[in-house]
């Protein structure tokens, strides 16, 4: 496998991790905002450019494994890229490109005292996320989970208020316990199998109790970090207080990366342990998350909390991949859903952030007449919301189509009902926001003429528009991207599933 790695690929993989890391160190040493901001943008563009040949390499050679540091398997730490990882890398890099300039402008506009510290924090988080996606070593994943946590918690703390710090502390404790559980799982796996090198671990159905405990510990640990239902308690609270750009990162990138990691572990090293019952059980948890998150989102009075619960709901769709894993369409659908949801969700948060700048808070009842002064931001919320709800012609629709086809194709019609009801509920909470915004204010003069789209700097307007456009554009690129999503070899994910 290693011989398929050429110089460009090796360079790209290294750059994805070292690029943000080195820049983070530079940002700490040299806190010159404008310089660092431009450097981050350049880095994001460079990484996007590098992802193109990397995607092509995965398309031609299949999953790539690169052993680091001149060691050989199984001692080496491997970097592992397949279609799932590629989807995440594209998502993260596009998010970096859109969210960073927005965050920078947002902090500047709110006269944030620590605005200069932001780039370093984001870069550390970005390093952690890229490593999480690429790493194929269990212990290395633990370290990267911690890096990610520290970066993400710091972003929540940028909210400064007592509520924000309290939410950050709650998040930190969830994450710390999650890491310890993950570490426990890692230790048990090593004690039982003597391997940390994930591409070589293949646990079978007749696993020892230690492995079962390890699987449970790892699952619980990552679920706490990813805010998976029912371990999601910190997410809505953190979102209520975190600065808007941090919310976008948390929902679109951090939570998605957590679910990605779970799927990677479940359907990689632990693929052999699934029975019909446990696989269906994970699906049921996902379904419960979809319904619970959507129902909560419908009850909230604050936009950011609505969107946060929407994240809890939408992550549930990714868990449906476990019972449907035998269908390649389900894999395509899950990756497509993760990417579209990440882009759309970030777009909604950023547009909501602009609304908050205009009206001062994010309460629904204050939105009346927002279509007068924030029409373009509402359009972004509408389009991105349609993508989240899986309405055509957005990328979310293609994802839902594939997931539905996978469920019906395998005769598991009960997931069809869940997917359909989840989409309808999502449409309901998105339109609930728009409905408040379309209400006519009782007194038209109440609208402050100074707050208008036009008064916001350009850097706050184009990122959400770009994200929504990408989520919409994905609806037209299914044919183009499908080859990259094709899982050619389902056997590692399905070995011994007993179905």
């Amino acid at each position, binding site marked *: 496998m290693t011989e398929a790695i050429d110089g460009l690929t090796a360079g790209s993989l290294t750059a994805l991790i070292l690029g943000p890391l080195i820049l983070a160190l530079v940002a700490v040493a040299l806190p010159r905002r404008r310089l660092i901001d431009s450097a981050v943008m350049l880095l994001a563009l460079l990484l996007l450019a590098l992802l193109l040949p990397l995607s092509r390499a995965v398309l031609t050679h299949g999953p790539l494994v690169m052993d680091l540091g001149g060691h050989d398997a199984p001692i080496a730490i491997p970097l592992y890229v397949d279609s799932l990882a590629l989807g995440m890398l594209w998502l993260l890099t596009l998010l970096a490109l859109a969210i960073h300039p927005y965050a920078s402008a947002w902090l500047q506009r709110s006269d944030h005292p620590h605005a200069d510290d932001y780039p370093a924090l984001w870069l550390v988080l970005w390093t952690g996320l890229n490593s999480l996606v690429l790493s194929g070593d269990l212990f290395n994943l633990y370290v990267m989970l911690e890096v990610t946590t520290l970066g993400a918690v710091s972003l929540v703390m940028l909210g400064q208020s007592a509520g924000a710090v309290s939410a950050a502390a709650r998040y930190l404790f969830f994450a710390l316990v999650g890491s310890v559980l993950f570490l426990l799982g890692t230790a048990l796996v090593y004690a039982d199998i003597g391997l940390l090198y994930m591409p070589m671990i293949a646990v079978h159905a007749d696993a020892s109790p230690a492995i079962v405990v390890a699987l449970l510990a790892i699952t619980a640990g990552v679920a706490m970090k990813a805010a998976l239902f029912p371990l999601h308690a910190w997410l809505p609270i953190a979102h209520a207080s975190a600065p808007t750009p941090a919310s976008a990162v948390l929902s679109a990138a951090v939570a998605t990366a957590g679910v990605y990691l779970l799927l990677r572990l479940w359907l990689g090293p632990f693929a052999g342990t699934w029975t019909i019952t446990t696989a269906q059980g994970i699906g049921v948890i996902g379904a419960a998350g979809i319904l619970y998150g959507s129902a909560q989102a419908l009850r909230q009075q604050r936009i950011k909390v609505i969107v946060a619960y929407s994240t809890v709901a939408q992550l549930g769709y990714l868990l449906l991949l476990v019972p449907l894993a035998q269908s390649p369409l389900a894999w395509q659908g899950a990756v497509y859903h993760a990417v579209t949801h990440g882009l759309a969700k970030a777009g909604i948060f950023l547009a909501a952030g602009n609304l908050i700048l205009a009206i001062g808070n994010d309460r629904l009842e204050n939105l009346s007449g927002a*279509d*007068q002064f924030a*029409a373009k931001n509402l*359009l972004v919320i509408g389009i991105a919301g*349609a993508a989240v709800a899986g*309405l*055509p*012609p957005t990328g979310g*629709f*293609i994802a*839902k*189509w*594939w997931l*539905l*086809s996978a469920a*019906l*194709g395998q005769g598991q019609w009960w997931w*069809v009902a869940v997917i*359909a*009801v989840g*989409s*309808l509920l999502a*449409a*309901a909470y998105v*339109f609930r926001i728009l*409905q408040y915004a*379309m*209400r*006519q204010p009782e007194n038209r003069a109440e609208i402050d003429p100074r707050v208008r789209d036009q008064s916001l700097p350009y850097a706050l307007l184009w990122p959400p528009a770009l994200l929504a456009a990408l989520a919409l554009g994905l*609806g*037209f690129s*299914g*044919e183009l991207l*499908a080859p990259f999503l094709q899982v050619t070899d389902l056997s590692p994910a399905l070995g011994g599933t007993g179905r």
Partner: protein
Amino acid sequence: MSAVYSAMPLWVVLSSLVAAVLILIVGEPYGRTRAAINVVAAVVKLLLVTVMLWGVGQGHDFQFSATLAPGIDFHLHADALTMLLSVLSAILWLVTTIYAIGYLKDSHDRARFFGFFSLCVTATMGVAAAGNLFTFFIFYELLSLSTWPLVVHDGTPKAMRAGAAYLAFTLVGGALLLVGIVVVQLLAGGTGFTPGGFMAATGASKTLLVCVFLLLFAGTAVKAALVPLHVWLPRAMVAPAPVSALLHAVAVVKAGAFGIVRLVYDVFGLELTALLGMNHVVAAAAAVTILYGSMQALKQTDLKAVLAYSTVSQVSYIALGVGIGSPLASIGGLAHLVHQGLMKITLFFCAGNLVHTHGVTKITEMDGAGRRMPWTMSAFTIAALGMIGVPPVAGFLSKWYLGLGGLQHGQSWIVPLLVISTILNAAYFLPLIRRAWFAPVPGNQRDAGVREAPASLLWPTLVAAALALGSGFLGGMPYSPLEWARFIVERVYG
């Protein structure tokens, strides 16, 4: 050139999409630019559709296809059935645009209104030109979404509730439709509309086919406002008059009815539908809706509510024609798709003129309206008589062919149904006409004299009325709605 010509359905769809995007980008303050874009796009669309109509009449095969994802194609085409809906919506878009520009002269959020109005027409064109169920669904949902901002345009709590009900019904219907379409795709490997249907070839079990048919039928019946899925329609009356006109005459209910026609003719085929016994389900749902809608219309005191329930009733003639399944009944049903559109848009324009010029919304306020607005009320009278089925207005032809078709197929129950329906139509329309022309003008307004609607409202009304009258008078001419319906049906029955 030939590829560009063959892709005509795409240009037809794009012409209003481009207008929608431009209008939303240009923004609120530039009213003249907006109006210019809108009217130019509507004229361009009408020209394109005319070219396409001529091409289809010559037997040209218009196709546009792009693969959206493996196995699922975005496919537009133009067959005879497509032209029925697209000609209707192209003509009425132009007429309604001019009307709406006048009607909303002092309204708020006009950029949003006209942007989504154009988007709505785009979706209707897409529904008409869709070459497979997948494409049909994309535009069907786009139609639901783009109509919502129009329904809630006033921003009042009542409008908001109506909008919520509208979305709830149409999106749930859309979800059912989507599940049905995915099953069709899995069974048949594709969803392309084929004359005579393609589901028979899948060899699926009868139970499964019935389930799929019911899913698809329920999904389309929501927009077609078949009882009991009609609830959203009367509530959506809260929207401004041009929107009501558009919803009822061309866009939403027609998309639903059109979907039922496609479902029976081009997905399941008449034979399979009859084999599954589903033609009776369609016909029964239509018959119940026809009677229920008329009964409800009798009870209403609000003019627009009368018209709304009248729509519920009248649109079901289309489904009835499909359900009876005989060639003549099909001609009647399909022709009614156009006839009802022309008559209903006239009636809604008139209702809009009444409220815009004199603030009249209730039936009781219509006393003497004919003397104050003679032109408007003449148009109203023509269209209302057409709805009742008085010759030579277009509605008569629809009912005549439906009745003949029922007898031809040995379904004589259709004749009493039509008679009862006609009596009910007369019972709620004739009193309106009587009030308008023969009741005295209320005392407090007696000195007002003749005050007609402004020209931008009156002309579209008169044009629509003339079209309704003309398509009845000239029913025997080539390219008249009736002849075109005959053309379609000849192809369906081979």
